[in-house]
């Protein structure tokens, strides 16, 4: 291979930071398939893994925007819990499922508007604001639920990410997963093909430059935190679908899984970099390790250690990619 060709491949890799995680995803798939050939490489298992990634995946779409912006959103797990409670509460009060779901997502969106307004209005670091919001929203969820799970009548909401019944196999994947796919295309498209998206990258890369170029920084930031919470609300809807109850103690620490997915996918916490594809691959990778570990009969603690190692290794490899002096 000529030096030129090698250089241009190197540059292509540097621009597309999701390639590394994708390779890891495929290699691990091959390894688990070789180790547990009877149960791991089946279509059923693949569908299960995809269904299990939906909650983290949808939340990761919002977090990808936040991280590219150079921010962080720690309130995602609490918003998911609050949404499940809100939906169950509305269903129990006799509201139709569609309106209950919408109500839950709108409540989540308002949480994000609150985050964004505080971050831009008070000029407090996003870490602090969303750390506070994490506690406030978790507390509100517990208050609304009276510190216990809220039972809700069963409805079609509970089938969003369930295994498809025999008659609907033509859909290939349950509707919740299709929602993730559509949302991923929309968020990916917005980031790449709209002014708003380019402005998110610009603010994350250099906020002063963005201001110099007339970008409405406050508006973009507020909108990004609002969208992140709206997507967390949709993730909450998926969580509710799986639980069938409103649980104020669900999804504790979920925000860290979401951040891990985004970071494994090639985003940097200092902002200006990241991609939807990468984040989804990151989320898939984490599910894959958990599932593969279970199939292998590894204990939970071993899986947790492996996931932790993967996060550090992924980011360390990413640093190599950004080695100073590399052309």
């Amino acid at each position, binding site marked *: 291979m000529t030096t030129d060709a090698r250089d241009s491949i190197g540059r292509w890799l540097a621009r597309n930071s999701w390639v590394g995680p994708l390779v890891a995803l495929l290699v691990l798939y091959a390894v688990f398939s070789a180790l547990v050939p009877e149960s791991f490489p089946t279509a059923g298992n693949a569908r299960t893994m995809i269904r299990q990634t939906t909650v983290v995946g949808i939340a990761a779409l919002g977090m990808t925007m936040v991280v590219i912006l150079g921010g962080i959103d720690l309130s995602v797990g609490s918003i998911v819990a609050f949404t499940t409670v809100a939906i169950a509460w509305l269903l129990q009060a006799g509201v139709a499922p569609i309106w209950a779901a919408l109500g839950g997502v709108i409540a989540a969106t308002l949480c994000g508007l609150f985050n964004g307004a505080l971050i831009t209005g008070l000029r407090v670091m996003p870490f602090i604001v969303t750390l506070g919001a994490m506690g406030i929203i978790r507390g509100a969820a517990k208050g609304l639920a009276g510190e216990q799970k809220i039972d809700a009548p069963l409805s079609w909401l509970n089938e969003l990410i369930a295994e498809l019944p025999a008659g609907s196999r033509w859909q290939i994947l349950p509707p919740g997963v299709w929602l993730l796919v559509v949302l991923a295309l929309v968020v990916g498209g917005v980031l*790449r093909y709209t002014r708003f998206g380019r402005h998110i*990258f610009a603010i994350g890369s*250099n906020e002063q*430059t963005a201001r110099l170029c*007339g970008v409405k920084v406050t508006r973009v930031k507020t909108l990004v935190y609002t969208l992140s919470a709206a997507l967390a609300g949709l993730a909450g809807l998926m969580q509710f679908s799986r639980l069938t109850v409103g649980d104020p103690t669900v999804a504790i620490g979920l925000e860290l899984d979401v951040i891990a997915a985004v970071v494994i996918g090639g985003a940097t916490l200092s902002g*200006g970099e990241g991609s939807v594809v990468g984040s989804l691959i990151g989320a898939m990778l984490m599910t894959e390790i958990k599932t593969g570990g279970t199939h292998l009969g590894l204990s939970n603690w071993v899986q947790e250690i492996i996931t932790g190692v993967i996060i550090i290794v992924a980011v360390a490899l990413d640093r190599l990619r950004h080695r100073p002096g590399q052309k």
Partner: protein
Amino acid sequence: MSAPRLRIDRVSKRFGPTVALDGVCLEVAAGEVHAVVGENGAGKSTLMKVLSGALTPDEGAVHLDGSPFCPAHPHDARRLGVAMVYQELSLAPHLTVAENILLGVEPSRRGFLRLGEMRRAATAALAQLQRTEIPLDARAGNLPVALQQLVEIARSLAQADTRVLILDEPTSSLAEDDVRRLFEVIAALKARGLSILYISHVLEEVQAIADRFTVLRDGRTVGTGEVRGTPSSDIVRLMAGRQMDELFPRSPHAAGDPMLELDGVAGAVKPASASLTLRRGEVLGIGGLVGAGRTELLRAIFGLDPIRRGTVRVGAFSGWATPDRRLAQGVGLLSEDRKAEGLALSLSLADNVTLSQMRGMGPGPLVLPSRQRAAAVRWMQRLRVRYRDTRQAVRELSGGNQQKVALARLLHHDVDVFLLDEPTRGIDVGSKADIYALIDELARAGKAILIVSSYLPELLGVCDRVAVMHRGRLGAARPVADLTEHSVLMEAIGQA
């Protein structure tokens, strides 16, 4: 005459093809205040970096009290007795005055601080400055800048047997009273036998405090002598004295309608008052010293800083406006700080060029990367930027090419009023020439250009008229034919 305290002998330093220091010689005696003067870019800061250990010279030698002095890094230089107080203060704002003075050399026993000893040592250091009234327990960040500076000087005295103290533009952020007090401190240190290198381009100060002076120009020592008996105009001639080169294309510009009118504009702190009229097809320069308020004026016009008084009129619009409104009115700003503000270094060329203007980049509200790249390619060719791919990060380009990318953004936005802040700072001569040619071409095409520059040949070479700012006040703009480097410099230091 005994051996000098500090002797700099034919020191040279190159950065790639740029010669920053070219055989500089300088001698300072014990107990002498020696002023180092020169225009921006004359090599003052490079020389000071060599002395403070931040840079190693390529050639030449430095001797301190007769023995070779070649520090490996700034801490090494301090240990050997040469301490520098930087323009940007480097105190830890959350620590107290005493903790700052003894940072890194805290008296301790088995890891426990000896608080009494600490106070004694800090007080002793302040006593050398005759400023023991500075409270030892105050948080450094809460002190006024003038006192922070003294704490920093005290620190350099407390931490080593300091024999040479370098003060880099020490008065740039001080009020007049504080300057007088600083001079008392300098006199006290001088009486104790310390040698002081005083870097400044404010000649009044040099005459008030220094015993001898050395003038640097283009990295060379062009003159040295006793301050007493040397008229300041002689020093100015040594600083400037250079022929205008062939860099500047001169074609007649026809000034048209007013595009930008300022009337008594005052910012939050600076400028104090600025009025001017910039016309279509005109290049208007603003000269003055660093810190006079020129950058602040451009930022206030562009809406990055607030305006306290006065009016800004752009065409038919009057009043303050935010940067996005200014851009919509056809006003663009080139930042003096390319890295921190002017460019998003980690983003691609294409993103940087099109950041402020993405209309017409795709169907409806969409922005297609392919069109962003096509637009970027057009401007990169037009400005002769050396690049590999419009998708590459701007960080990878050289300074001159980065500056062209920043300019390309204004061209792509098709602004009519260009506010250029130090447009050629820190870039190579070839890129400078390209940018001068571009400015000339823009003026002929009917654009209005306002340039802030600290480089006098550039101001006089490129502009049609020049106004000078001194301590926040902007003087009247005059045709360059009526000006010389000498007259601009005299006005800049307030001796017009």
